[in-house]
């Protein structure tokens, strides 16, 4: 979905937060457009939750500003908050209320009234698959359903910006798939920021990824860009009669050869050169018995590990 021309729903400039002398978030600059799903990725303690709390007005930033749909959050908190839906790490659920009562309360808090209120609650319940449990008490629901009620609470007032803090934490694989499908479905009308430390989640639902480490953005790109830039600079090859690593290294464009086992090698080459064909030809000529040739592209995981363990990007 092309989103470059869509209106900006969130813009933060130099957003920072410190507790005493400890700086938790350093000048975060973020811009999210309508329809975009941005993944905020980082190890625990990277400042993801703190950033989200500042964006939702739960925590006052030490420096910088937050603008939601052009409204300054710090100057007009009430108007800005009306456009945000927030699911914190721990869903803020009143266990003693039924799902219907709770969602009605959440909708009322966002100034929905009468007919539009009933409709909004119905729509939110339908989108989150809660139609059958409307009369159940939230405290008696399973964790997966409670999480869905948390998401329903965040979308009930049709916010422009949806902020989900680890929406799939603690769910089983089926529930995770459901929540992800829901997020994909939601992207149309809302901008979504979701934080996670689960990497495949970002690759499966996000358009863009921002990797946070020790309060700084250390990587920022679209998922497509990430996959493109990492693709085709690496091969995994296997031989029945393996040659010496030096023999492979002599091929044009190969920068590094790593032996993975006695029969397998990881070949890193300069991007844009088709080393695969040269390798296959060399293998046929020399009788190495090529039995595997797989293009390897750096997954988000490799980028993540490299960035958050202090290594420089090559």
């Amino acid at each position, binding site marked *: 979905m092309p989103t470059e021309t869509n209106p900006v729903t969130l813009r933060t400039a130099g957003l920072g937060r410190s507790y005493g002398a400890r700086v938790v978030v350093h000048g975060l600059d973020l811009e999210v457009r309508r329809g975009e799903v941005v993944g905020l990725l980082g190890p625990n303690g990277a400042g993801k939750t703190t950033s989200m709390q500042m964006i939702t*007005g*739960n925590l006052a930033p030490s420096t910088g500003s937050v603008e939601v749909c052009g409204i300054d959050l710090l100057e007009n908190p009430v108007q800005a*908050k009306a456009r*945000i839906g927030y699911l914190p790490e721990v869903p803020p659920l009143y266990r003693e209320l039924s799902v219907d009562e709770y969602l009605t309360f959440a909708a*009322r808090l966002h100034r929905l009234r009468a007919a539009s209120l009933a409709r909004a609650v119905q729509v939110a319940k339908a989108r989150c698959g809660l139609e059958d449990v409307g009369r159940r008490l939230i405290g008696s629901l399973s964790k997966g359903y409670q999480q869905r009620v948390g998401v329903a609470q965040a979308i009930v007032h049709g916010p422009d910006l949806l902020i989900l803090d680890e929406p799939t934490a603690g769910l089983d694989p089926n529930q995770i798939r459901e929540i992800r499908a829901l997020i994909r479905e939601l992207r149309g009308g809302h901008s979504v920021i979701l934080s996670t430390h689960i990497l495949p989640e970002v690759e499966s639902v996000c358009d863009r990824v921002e990797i946070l480490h020790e309060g700084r953005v250390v990587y920022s790109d679209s998922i497509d860009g990430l996959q493109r830039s990492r693709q085709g600079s690496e091969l995994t090859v296997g031989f029945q009669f393996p040659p010496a690593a030096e023999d492979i290294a002599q091929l044009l464009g190969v920068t590094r050869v790593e032996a993975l086992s006695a029969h397998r090698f990881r070949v890193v080459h300069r991007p844009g050169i088709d080393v695969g064909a040269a390798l296959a030809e060399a293998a046929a000529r020399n009788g190495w018995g090529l039995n595997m040739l797989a293009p390897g592209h750096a997954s988000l995981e490799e980028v993540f590990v490299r960035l958050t363990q202090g290594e420089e990007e090559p």
Partner: protein
Amino acid sequence: MIGVIGLRELRTLFASPLAWVVLAVTQLIIAWVFLGRLDTYLQLQAQLRQIANAPGITEFIAAPVFGTAAIMLLMAVPLLTMRLVAEERRNRTLTLLMSAPVSAAQIILGKYLGIMLFLLLVIALAALMPLTLLAGGRLDAGLLAMNVAGLVLLAAAFAALGLFMSVLTAQPAVAAISGLGAALAFWLMDLAAPDAGGFLSHLSLLRHYESFGKGILDSYDAVSFVLFSAVFLALTIRRLDAERLGG
């Protein structure tokens, strides 16, 4: 918006057994005192008739009933207010209110409204008992009204104080015990005062409440209660607003 938050608070109160137990125990104790006084009155009725300017039935029965109700409120209100903010903070549900487009003042006033609606119910039930005397006699409506008004103002003051204690902590039990301690301290503020007209006696809630019990509407006492409540509500709102700054 204040109403929305207030009604939710009331709904939660009645979803827990605490509210019902408070209502039941308060009613039981007040009924006990009421019956005791009624018994005494019936025994002394003949003698009272011979005394000039003897206390009427309202003064004889209703006043002690409302005095007991005041003590019950002193103990029950901190238990009811303890969870208002502290429990929401502990259960992390406060985020829902803090992320919603409502101000800290609306959150606090909403919660205050919720607890006051409940306390008005407690007071109304307590007032119903002396009203049953209408079946067999005449009541001093003015005295009764002043007693009820005094109780409402007292409840408002205790609730504001308890709410403030609740916003200071994430532990409902801590809020309850400090609320009870503070309420008792303000109740008996003039106990340690060396002279009756001193500064401390102006802070004593008991002193302000006494005139209502006698059926006197002293604007100074009424305003004192209102000011007391307003100050603690303002402190509570400020504290909740500062929540975003601290960490």
